[in-house]
């Protein structure tokens, strides 16, 4: 098992692919593998790409990866597609849009099925990203499933989250609803050559003008708790472009705000002949990285992320251990009593906890 970790760290792509399978299938060797890899993580910049189906996420990821390669950075991509809730099968088709990247040893693409997870990622995506990080990729792009309004897991897995929109997908009321737009660090209007692109950009900017969650402190709802990370509102900030620039460094750290810029892209356009907006996008991602890296922000964000993950894992493990301790006959008898209305669910929890 440690052989697999050693081979992965030595740059074997086959070992990396096998390790991802071990992690994805949650095999018994997975914890030891992740223990061996963890000290080697924390180097990559992880970028999440989310948005509704058909907005062009895969094409955008393809164009971004190609642009990063031109700057000499290595790129890993995790592309998540949905598992059928009826058959457990899945069609993982994101590679179709990523064929330009083939033949490049500086790129590694892995498709993952959600396998029943509902937050836009698979349950093991976070650990898969760790393996890719340990393997030494500079940039890791996570493409979520075509997400609707509440698949916000990506904000907890990525350092910079892009929310991709396309013209004609909804009016300005969609833009002020809660959920996916709130997690955006950068908003992308892809297919910007299509009619209606100006309206989409305008609606998104109007939403930001009304107040973005980063304005009042970033909230990530988790099991009913609101996690808060510091990012204060600057009322005077212009909404249209990212406010943070290197020249602001001298001013009091922490007082700067990040307002998500709205970037137009045309991911399928040939960047050699026409402006596709990808350069602007990468520049804004870099600006966001600089913003987070300033002062305590990145450390605080990671702290909150680890907090959430730890609670997740503790809850999962404690539950498993508890259920191992009580007999299934007893557990079933409790269910029967609740069904018969002789016991209520709240008292049942107390009873089970004291029955151990």
């Amino acid at each position, binding site marked *: 098992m440690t052989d697999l970790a050693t081979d992965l760290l030595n740059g074997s792509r086959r070992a990396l*692919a*096998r390790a991802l399978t071990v992690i*994805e*299938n949650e095999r018994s060797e997975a914890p030891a593998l992740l223990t061996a890899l963890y000290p080697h993580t924390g180097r990559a910049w992880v970028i999440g790409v989310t948005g509704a189906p058909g907005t062009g996420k895969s094409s955008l990821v393809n164009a971004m990866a190609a642009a990063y390669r031109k700057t000499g950075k290595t790129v890993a991509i995790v592309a998540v597609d949905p598992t059928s809730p009826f058959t457990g*099968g899945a069609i993982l088709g994101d590679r179709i849009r990523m064929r330009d990247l083939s*033949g490049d040893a500086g790129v590694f693409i*892995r*498709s993952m099925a959600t396998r029943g997870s509902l937050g836009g990622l698979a349950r093991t995506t976070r650990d898969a990203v760790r393996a890719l990080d340990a393997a030494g990729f500079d940039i890791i792009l996570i493409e979520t499933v075509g997400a609707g309004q509440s698949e916000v897991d990506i904000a907890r897995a990525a350092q910079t989250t892009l929310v991709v929109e396309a013209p004609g997908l909804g009016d300005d009321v969609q833009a002020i609803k809660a959920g996916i737009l709130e997690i955006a660090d950068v908003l992308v209007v892809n297919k910007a050559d299509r009619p209606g692109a100006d309206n989409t950009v305008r609606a998104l900017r109007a939403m930001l003008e009304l107040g973005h969650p980063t304005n009042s402190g970033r909230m990530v709802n988790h099991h009913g708790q609101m996690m808060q990370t510091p990012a204060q509102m600057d009322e005077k900030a212009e909404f249209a472009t990212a406010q943070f620039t290197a020249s602001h460094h001298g001013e009091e750290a922490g007082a700067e705000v990040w307002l998500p810029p709205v970037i137009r892209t045309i991911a399928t356009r040939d960047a050699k002949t026409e402006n596709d907006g990808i350069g602007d996008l990468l520049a804004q991602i870099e600006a966001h990285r600089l913003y987070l890296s300033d002062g305590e922000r990145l450390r605080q964000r990671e702290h909150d992320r680890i907090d959430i993950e730890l609670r997740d894992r503790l809850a999962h493990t404690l539950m498993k251990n508890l259920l191992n301790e009580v007999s299934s006959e007893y557990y079933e008898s409790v269910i029967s009593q609740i069904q018969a209305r002789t016991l209520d669910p709240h008292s049942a929890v107390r009873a089970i906890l004291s029955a151990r």
Partner: protein
Amino acid sequence: MMDGHAIRILIAKPGLDGHDRGAKVIARALRDAGFEVIYTGLRQTPDMIAEAALQEDVDVVGLSILSGAHQTLVPVIRQAMDAHELGDVPMILGGIIPEQDFEAMKQAGVKAIFGPGSTTTDIVTTIRRIVAERGEPTV
């Protein structure tokens, strides 16, 4: 998949023919049988197929060839797979393959051939058997 997880299969169309309806029908049928199907689309080169099979760590590679170029393509794909240390990953072939070529295809490392008239049940059962026979991959 040896630990009860979905079988991962790469469905690829090598060469230049543009008829991908068959490949899509099979991809859908395999999805409905509970497989995870990595679909790479048209006009894949042998190296693209081998590289995708490596990165995705698939249990089996399914090729769809309708152009009659299987005698040329299949051995080159097998070589590319071997060069990517995927010598133990089985290949299956679908499309229009004349019976007199079956032996040559098997020599080139194809474990099963499905022509017109193959039922999806038959295809699913055969793939399950081939993957089970392969057992746990080395590395």
